[in-house]
């Protein structure tokens, strides 16, 4: 079934929202993961400062994705959330605990350890289940009659565990890049040192995942064979990581580690796109099959063209107001 133009429009909107979400929430989740690797209170306060004005807005995109899927591709919404019932639960719990840590950690000395633990564990959990879901998607999701037909722990395959760990490290790398970009002095150097190890870590985990645990027979079900040019994307991603791992960013502009990591994420996202297209639930439901009737997509369109640019403008506005290095905290 060929997708209508409206279906393509909404698929494009959702794809952009997912990529934006991964990068934006990725760096603040990553800072949350790195937060757990230091005991230095001064570092911790500064780390929180670099993401405090942004994290909630970043999560807005997750709700755009959820609401957009339900409205424009109800089948995908139903199958995806059914297939990842437990991971989605953990995702929400993780998001809640790291969210309240922002509001409560500065209000209580006694409870601070608990909120801090929640902040680190919540961030790590969210990153892990997202990565595991991507891994499980690459292996394919069983569907019967438009509903998920697998088991509750079907997603928890060694490959998915490795992609989960990979995304934890990947988000931490984004977070380290963000810290280099937004901080000065000791914290900047601290983050700088971690960039190298994290980039190498992501490379190793991905290499393990794709050599030991990936079942290449699923590729026969994807259309990747007809799009060999698409292999350029994983190549770009690996090059970007390798460059960071050997330390090309040293003594260069502070934006380089973050920019290189973003390049890696974009390349990885496009690799997945090349692998999955035209499927939305690989390798069972295509974009055309999943799309709601045009009457729904049209109705939603009017709201989307007003709201999405407004959210984008607001996001840009917040980043502009809080631009530059964090010096004395944002007041």
């Amino acid at each position, binding site marked *: 079934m060929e997708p209508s133009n409206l279906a393509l429009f909404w698929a494009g909107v959702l794809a952009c929202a997912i990529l934006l979400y991964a990068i934006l929430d990725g760096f603040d989740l990553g800072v949350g993961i790195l937060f757990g690797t230091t005991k230095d209170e001064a570092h911790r306060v*500064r780390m929180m*400062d670099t993401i*405090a*004005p942004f994290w*909630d*807005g970043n*999560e*807005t995109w997750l*709700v*755009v994705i*959820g*609401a957009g899927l*339900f*409205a*424009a591709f*109800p*089948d995908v*919404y*139903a*199958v995806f*959330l*059914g*297939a990842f*019932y*437990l991971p*989605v*639960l953990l995702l*929400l*719990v993780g*998001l*809640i*605990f790291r*969210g*309240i840590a922002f*509001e409560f950690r*500065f*209000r*209580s000395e*006694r*409870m*601070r350890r608990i909120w801090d633990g929640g902040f680190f564990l919540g961030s790590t959990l969210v990153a892990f289940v997202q990565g595991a879901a991507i891994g499980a998607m690459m292996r394919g999701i069983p569907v019967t009659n438009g*509903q*998920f*037909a697998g*088991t*509750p722990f079907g997603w928890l395959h060694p490959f998915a565990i490795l992609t989960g760990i990979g995304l934890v490290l990947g988000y931490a790398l984004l977070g380290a890049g963000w810290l280099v970009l937004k901080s000065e002095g000791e914290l900047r150097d601290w983050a700088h040192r971690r960039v190298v190890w994290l980039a190498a870590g992501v490379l190793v985990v991905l290499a393990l995942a794709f050599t030991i645990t990936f079942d290449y027979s699923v590729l026969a079900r994807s259309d990747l064979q007809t799009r060999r040019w698409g292999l350029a994307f994983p190549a770009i991603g690996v090059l970007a990581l390798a460059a960071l791992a050997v330390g090309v960013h040293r003594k260069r502009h502070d934006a380089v580690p973050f920019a290189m990591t973003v390049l890696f994420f974009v390349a990885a996202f496009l690799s997945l796109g090349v692998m999955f297209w035209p499927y939305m639930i690989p390798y069972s439901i295509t974009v055309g099959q999943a799309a*709601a009737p045009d*009457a*729904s997509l049209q*109705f*939603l369109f009017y*709201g989307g063209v*007003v*709201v999405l640019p*407004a959210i984008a403008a*607001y996001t840009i506005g*917040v980043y502009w107001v809080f631009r530059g290095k964090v010096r004395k*905290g*944002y*007041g």
Partner: protein
Amino acid sequence: MDLDPVFLSRLQFAFLISFHIIFPSFTIGLGAWLATIEGARLVTGNPLYRRVFDFWLKVFAVSFGMGVVTGIVMAFQFGTNWGVLAQKTGSIQGPLLGYEAFTAFMLEATFFGVMLLGRDRVSPRFYFFACCMVSLGTMFSSFWILANNSWMQVPVGHSIVDGRIVPADWRQIVLGSVMMVRWPHMLLAAFLTTGMCVTATGAWYVLRDVHRAEAGVMLRWGLGLVAAMIPIQLFFGHLTGLYVLKHQPAKFAAIEARWKTQQPASEVLLAIPDEKSERNLYAIEIPKLGSMIASGNWTAKEIGLEAFPKEDRPPVLIPFFGFRLMVGMGLIMLAVSWFGNVLRWRGRLETTRWFLWGTFLAFPTGFVAVLCGWFTAEVGRQPWVVYGLLRTKDAVTPSLTTGDVLFSLSTYVLVYSVVYSFGLYYIYKLLHEGPTADAKAIPGATGNRPLAFADNAESATGGKLRPEG
């Protein structure tokens, strides 16, 4: 009742939505209250109104934040637990709920930020305008939720293609006659909920002899607004009853605990309905009144539950008591607000301590009424999730196991008890302290982070504000 995925999923949805609805109903009312009091300040220039405004703005920020946190969880429930519902009706429910999310984002992204952080940066007129827009935004949010739920209660404007329920006429879906009765009913419920809270807070301060000037404003405005709105609400409640009678006769019979078809029908005031023997125990009934309430005359025939096959009947206990509790709460609000205005007229409002105590204790009446009203509407719709089109037991995600839902339900209960106790404790601290310190944003506050805004020098959890880092 078996602990099967359907029952547990219903329990989970009921738990999550109940703990969510409390905050939106409070913030819809608070948004309107803030716009009202800011308007009054703009007209009169009375600085007292500014202090009252600043105080309730902090409470608004915290409730808004709690509403967002619990709302995000709701956004995923239709897919995780009600996959068949999402698949079959997603092309109608999805866009409606999508618009709700859009509305909420617009609100956060625009005027809410101005309201929280822009007091000194924009003109007073524009600030008032921003308050009105935030209030409108909260109302629009509820508009989409009610449009969606009204469609589930009385589906209109759809067609069925390949077993899926797809939109045919959006105008009917969004602006149907049922929606036009239920939305005002919900809005008024939210206004009354907040009105009672504002009034009770005023009474509390008078009883404790603190913030007397502000307390006077809260008492007088609260009592006045509730007294004016409650008759309108009773009228819309009546209209809501009429739609139920017309479109969902089984729900109506359950609310009335009318097992047998009667002519003329009596009205059961109180009883313990016994679902097994299909009769009422210890019933207090008034003959003929049932016909009068439903049909407007003393002789009409009213159908009972026996007219419906067993598998099409809703449970009786919850709609029966839910409805009566809701009406009871409405009558308490009526009594408190009207009597309070009589006292005020006689100049004895702030000296009649027993009345102030009663008013203070009446603070949860609005919340109880909202919850009971929704329990009545939702349980009364059973066994359907989309009335007449899709049964609840057929709507659940087929791959779900009992273990899945037991685990998720207990996790949510655990997490919500932590988050809720802190949120409520924080709101309690704000209310207890009253309109003292000026609101002061902690660093990094944006329109997206209302909780950060609501902080002030006295911390909620007894700690200190962090040093400037």
